[in-house]
């Protein structure tokens, strides 16, 4: 595994990365967005290691969010959107957990959450926006009062102020910065020097990584220094923000990874079915998470037929003509 002298201290197994950087109660930012580039390999390992009381901070998330909630790892959630495309317009275990009162949650919007990560990345304590004015996002606090200011929970959900540069009545919402304990990123490439390159949309992955205290990057491939440094305009994160590098091809499955593979409709439909039933969901976890001792074994279960179906056309970036129903 350590054929990479420059990053010998960072390249590790997913087991080790989770063990070192994720603890009970950690505040975690998930990379990706609904059905794309979810850090699934790490999410499965978190479940296997029985990590509890996680505080997730999310904009729009799907598969990783839902499986972590369903497995009982999540205590607390700041979120804009829990959905999985057409496979679950509202994420199913997320929905059940809230309806059953099993987790603490607080609603924000996508831009608000992204701006909060941006503020964290810039090292500023808050950031203003007009988004939220008039919305119940500003009328309902999800978290109980006694949680305010505890560890990584902001002392207030937001703060309203008059714009000091305007003489008219001009209200602005100030949003508190986020600085999670850990950000998870699934990238296409990491260089032998530790530089990260995400292809396609970056969502809020860059802001999340820079806002966090530590970053685990899983990747499809580790590529030569000469390649990653040849066109640095394309790179996403410098090496010094990355703490753990794990090579896990198909590490975002069943979510997609631009230029490598599409989301997996077969698996997402299976998930949709099992997620609706507590018993079936438990069996799903037993079979696909607890019962699997390595990611190779997981991919074996997915099977080469499915893997071939979702294989992306590397130019178009997705699997052409894939049956997505």
């Amino acid at each position: 595994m350590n054929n990479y002298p420059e990053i010998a201290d960072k390249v590790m197994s997913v087991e080790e990365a989770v063990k070192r950087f994720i603890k009970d109660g950690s505040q975690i930012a998930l990379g990706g967005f609904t059905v794309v580039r979810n850090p699934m390999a790490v999410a499965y390992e978190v479940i296997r290691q029985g990590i509890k009381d996680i505080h997730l901070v999310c904009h729009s998330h799907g598969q990783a969010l839902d499986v972590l909630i369903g497995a009982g790892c999540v205590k607390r959630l700041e979120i804009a959107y829990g959905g999985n495309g057409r496979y679950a317009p509202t994420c199913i275990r997320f929905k059940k957990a809230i309806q059953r009162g099993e987790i603490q949650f607080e609603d924000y919007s996508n831009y608000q959450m992204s701006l909060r990560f941006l503020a964290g990345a810039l090292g500023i304590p808050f950031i203003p926006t007009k988004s939220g004015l008039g919305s119940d996002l500003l009328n309902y606090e999800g978290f109980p009062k006694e949680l305010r200011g505890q560890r990584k929970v902001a002392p207030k959900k937001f703060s309203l102020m008059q714009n000091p540069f305007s003489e008219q009545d001009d209200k602005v919402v100030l949003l508190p910065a986020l600085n999670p304990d850990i950000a998870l990123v699934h990238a296409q490439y990491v260089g032998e020097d530790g530089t990260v390159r995400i292809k396609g949309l970056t969502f809020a992955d860059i802001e999340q990584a820079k806002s966090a205290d530590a970053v685990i990057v899983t990747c499809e491939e580790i590529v030569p220094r000469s390649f990653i440094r040849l066109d640095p305009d394309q790179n996403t994160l410098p090496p010094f923000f990355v703490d753990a590098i794990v090579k896990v091809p198909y590490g975002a499955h069943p979510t997609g990874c631009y230029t490598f593979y599409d989301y997996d409709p077969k698996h997402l439909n299976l998930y949709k079915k099992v997620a609706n039933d507590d018993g079936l969901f438990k069996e799903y976890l037993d079979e696909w998470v607890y019962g699997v001792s390595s990611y190779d074994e997981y991919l074996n279960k997915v099977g080469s037929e499915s893997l071939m179906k979702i294989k992306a056309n590397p130019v178009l970036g997705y699997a052409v003509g894939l049956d997505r129903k």
Partner: protein
Amino acid sequence: MANYTDNEMMAISAGRFVKNGDIVFAGTGLSMLAATAAKRIYAPKAVIFFETGGIDPSLEEIPMAVSDLRVMYGTCLNSGLIEAFSIVGHRRLHTIAFLGAAQIDRYGNLNTTVIGDYWRPKTRFSGSGGACDVSAFASGVITFMQHEKRRFVEKLDYLTSVGWYEGGESRRNLGLQRGGALAVVTNLCVMRFDETTKEMYLAEYYPGITVDKIVENTGFPIDVSRAREAEPPSAEDLRILREEVDPQRLIL
């Protein structure tokens, strides 16, 4: 019997609001269909973009999520959420957004968060996503609704996204400098908003739909005095929708 489906009529009705030069914020499902159809039929110079940061993709296949890999190919720019939302609200751009909702009130305010109590809801939905942001910033919002009394309500269980707020000047008084609800496109009709009161009124009922049926299925009183029958989709509209926009019939 009409030779088109509700979804087709809705996509075409909504698409008619898009003008050349508009920057169109598209979600998934009907909203994607409407945006793509509009660009192919009415407004070839409209730009479709996604909150995830994909701007003007070639859309050779229809995306099924706003993060779908299909919104990343052939774009003029692959960016991220911060970039996308700063575009929605950019004062130089005329931006039109398509949204959906679980509930809507007479001022076009939307609920996509919960039915019932916020903390222990009867039904929890996905949440705001970008809807609150887009409603605050876009030049105009078009909302798709299934036309049912329980969805057109006197009072929202939760106001996720601001339309005309409490009507009149109240949206502007909140500090939202532009935008507001432009139209509501349902499976029965197209609703618009009065210029002064900002209350919803019936603008167009679809061929074969009675005004009474619409009134019955709306949970608040609604002005029907300005209603006229909507133009059905043309054969060419339907061909484009079926053959070019969604040949796999993933949404239609």
